[in-house]
């Protein structure tokens, strides 16, 4: 129908409606230009991040001689697991990997145990100082860990936490908490209070209503927040380096190897790729979800 009408109007439009069309085109042209600029910016930013990742990735899966070759081929000629295996079998890597996973899981558990109730309280209760509390949470993010690191290390030594996985996990928990709290609070805001009240009228006490209704509904969001903590912990280098000596997590180990003994290029590439991979996978699967959540936090 509408196609027909359009077809019938075309000659008319050409003849008489030209001035209107020209006028109507102006804003669309501006729009097109804005859109093009936007795409150009997006592509530039993406390239800025993707090119190094790509180079690291192809190097990590190239045979060793290709890594030392110069100039580099932008498209890998041969693929090989040699480089990755070299890294995998390097001294300390496997135990550092175990450490990283353990620290990540501990940080994830602690941050949820502390952060989810705090987020829930922020979402559900109006209490004195609620807004200042929110600000406070955010300002902790502005505190550079570099300043804290020495006193923290000293305290850790006193508390017998130095060079333990627990210690690193606690530090990572502290770093992840602001995000965890704000994200979980936005998740719980999304779960209608009336659902919990309905559960209360049906025989639940407050805790049961939370466990049976709010928690299951918040679970996907909480899982995303938990994985976020894990990835943060997985990538965190500074605190892990300062607070450990022998029980290094993977990024701390890689950094130490590079700094102390100038680890060979294959080790660097493979290690770099190994560290990036989980974040990439996480962001790929969670991107939609995260955008939604942070959209809410910002609002």
């Amino acid at each position, binding site marked *: 129908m509408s196609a027909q009408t359009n077809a019938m109007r075309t000659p008319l439009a050409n003849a008489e409606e030209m001035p209107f069309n020209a006028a109507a085109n102006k804003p669309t042209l501006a729009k097109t230009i804005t859109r093009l600029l936007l795409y150009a910016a997006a592509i530039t930013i993406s390239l800025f991040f993707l090119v190094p990742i790509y180079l690291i990735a192809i190097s990590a899966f190239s045979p060793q001689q290709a890594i030392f070759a110069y100039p580099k081929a932008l498209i890998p000629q041969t693929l090989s697991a040699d480089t990755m295996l070299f890294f995998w079998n390097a001294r300390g890597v496997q135990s550092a990997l175990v450490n990283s996973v353990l620290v990540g899981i501990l940080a994830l558990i602690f941050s949820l145990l502390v952060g989810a109730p705090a987020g829930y309280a922020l979402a559900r209760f109006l209490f004195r100082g609620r807004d200042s509390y929110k600000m406070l949470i955010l300002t902790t993010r502005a505190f550079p860990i570099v300043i804290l690191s020495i006193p923290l290390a000293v305290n850790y030594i006193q508390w017998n936490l130095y060079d333990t996985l627990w210690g690193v996990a606690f530090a990572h928990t502290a770093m992840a908490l602001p995000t965890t709290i704000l994200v979980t609070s936005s998740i719980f805001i999304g779960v*209608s209070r*009336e659902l919990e*009240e*309905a*559960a*209360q*009228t*049906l*025989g639940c006490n407050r805790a049961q209503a939370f466990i049976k209704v709010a928690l299951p*509904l918040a679970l996907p969001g909480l899982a995303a927040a938990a994985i976020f903590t894990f990835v943060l912990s997985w990538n965190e280098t500074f605190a892990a380096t300062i607070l450990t000596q022998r029980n290094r997590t993977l990024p701390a180990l890689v950094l130490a190897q590079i700094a102390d003994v100038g680890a060979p290029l294959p080790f660097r590439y493979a290690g770099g790729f190994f560290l990036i991979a989980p974040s990439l996978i996480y962001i790929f699967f969670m991107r939609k979800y995260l955008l939604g959540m942070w959209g809410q936090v910002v609002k």
Partner: protein
Amino acid sequence: MGEIRIEGVWKYFNKGKVAALKDISLTVEDREFMVLLGPSGCGKTTLLRCIAGLEYPERGRIFIGGRDVTDAPPRSRGIAMVFQSYAVFPHLNVFENIAFGLRMQKRPNEEVTRRVNQAAGLMRIEKFLERYPAQLSGGQRQRVAVARGLVMEPQVLLMDEPLSNLDALLRLQARAELKRLLQEVETTTVYVTHDQIEALSMGDRIAVMEIGEIVQVDVPKEVYENPATLFVGGFIGTPPMNFMRGTVKSVNGASAITIGDQVIHAALPAHFQTGQDLLMGIRAENIEASTQSSPDAVPARVLVVEPLGSHLLLTAQVGDTPIKVQTRIDFPVVPDQTIYLKLESNQVRWFDAETGVRFESGEKMSVV
């Protein structure tokens, strides 16, 4: 058994700045269907939530089945509640939604199945038991919410505007169905609505609320015919009750009332004094319109003529007060015409012009 007694309940919000409920006292008899009616924001939901135990009143006591439940949590009050948003659990299918309360009571599986099926049958949703709420229409979700409450066989069923989220046609159908159902189950019910037609058609009694206070509690017929205040008369009925401001006069020794320059002879109670301002209230259907003048009729100029299918609704001006008049559909009238109105004398109500409170109808309150 399921009698609700509310005694002097006050509820404040915003640190005491807003009084949402002001000294509410109300008794709902066992198995009675009580409607809380009032405009949006008058405190209906708040009162319902106080009964449910979801809000804690700052003052006053609440008794259910003779037991003081003011300090009891919602779960131990013997109530079930249907929320305005339905609050159906999105992560549970219809069966588990309805079974939720029974599962909390750790009832054996066979009993749960039997009772859920029975409640679902009652609400005609037995076909959807496997579905999730997201796959249901608004009307079906509303039924799930009602079934979830009924299955608990509560002493008291609380419903907050359960039909307000349905579209007009469905609402009409659901209203009749809900009424049939609640007659069957014979549970004490408190039903909140802002829709006066819903209240008139469903309630055993209606409690009319105005900004945090109950202004009248009575059977629908009484609330409609003898509104306690100006507010009630103006809120209930389509169209609302007509009000005309008048002054008591004495004409040739007989009492009369003047509205604008109209004199209406009326036998008024003795305590009305000459010069006193009154409001005369009368409903559109209690005014008889005629094209012929007669001594006991008041002339009025027609402003608007609205044919409403079964009857005509006229807006006519008496003095300078526009009033609504209902006539048969074939009444011959055009705008700007003068018609003559006879007020059914035993349907006239008198209200205090200052307080808006109706004067108790004395036997002699008739318009001549």
